[in-house]
């Protein structure tokens, strides 16, 4: 069998089309769930704290805090699902994972601003 034979064979078919009910399901859908309406504000606050902390120590570049690794991406997906699965949840999950990675890589670094604030609350 040549490549062209395989292609000809495949072209006798096509992926099956969507069931008719899918259009109704899609159009009837409501806006994305926002289980945590304050998630955007929390994410923005967390981003500010992280940025300030990283800038102050000039270590962000070497900290490898990105969520590019498979483990981090997987963790982000899980966390985003737990937080509701919408765009805001994914944003917050990504920031939480970044902070987690950052802390792992900087175990000797002084506590972050959020820790001090949390300590005052205790």
């Amino acid at each position: 069998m040549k490549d062209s034979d395989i292609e000809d064979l495949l072209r006798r078919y096509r992926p099956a089309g969507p069931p008719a009910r899918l259009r109704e399901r899609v159009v009837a859908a409501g806006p994305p769930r926002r289980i945590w309406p304050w998630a955007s504000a929390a994410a923005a606050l967390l981003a500010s704290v992280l940025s300030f902390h990283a800038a102050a120590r000039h270590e962000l570049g070497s900290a490898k805090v990105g969520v590019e690794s498979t483990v981090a991406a997987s963790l982000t997906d899980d966390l985003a699902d737990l937080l509701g699965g919408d765009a805001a949840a994914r944003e917050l999950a990504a920031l939480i994972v970044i902070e987690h990675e950052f802390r792992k890589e900087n175990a000797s670094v002084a506590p972050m601003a959020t820790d001090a604030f949390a300590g005052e609350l205790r």
Partner: protein
Amino acid sequence: MSDRPRDDARSLVGRLYDTYGAALYRYALLLLADTAAAEDAVHQVFTAILGHPPRFEEELHYLRRAIRNECYSALRRQQRHGERSGAGAILEPVGQAAPHDERIAVERALRGLPPEQREVIALHVFEGMTFQEIADAAGLSINTVTARYRYALGKLRRMLTPS
């Protein structure tokens, strides 16, 4: 109080679904090889549109990228939770009726490919996209795309050639 914004959003989703829904579903179906998972992926993407509608000039690019991301997220979830996909027929004959056994064999062979190779088959063979267009749409190099296609054809040949 008016329902106008919601109605507008729904008519936008209806228009986008009528224009792109079938192609996006077919793309998702080939990637996921599971009808229910493909439906969920399309539903998820169109639900997200209600919150963030794409600009008119980039609708197709946006939707294709969104469905791709959703499908790969679904595949990662399946992998983590040990779920197996495979429910429902993923192919239908074009034009004249094809032998049932042949469709089953082709479908089984496609299911035997990794999702990223099925994706290239879907876009090149079934959607008629060039390798460069696939590379641009998927954010891959053209070498990666062509290599995946060659590997896919090789595996399909081995699986479809009678021993």
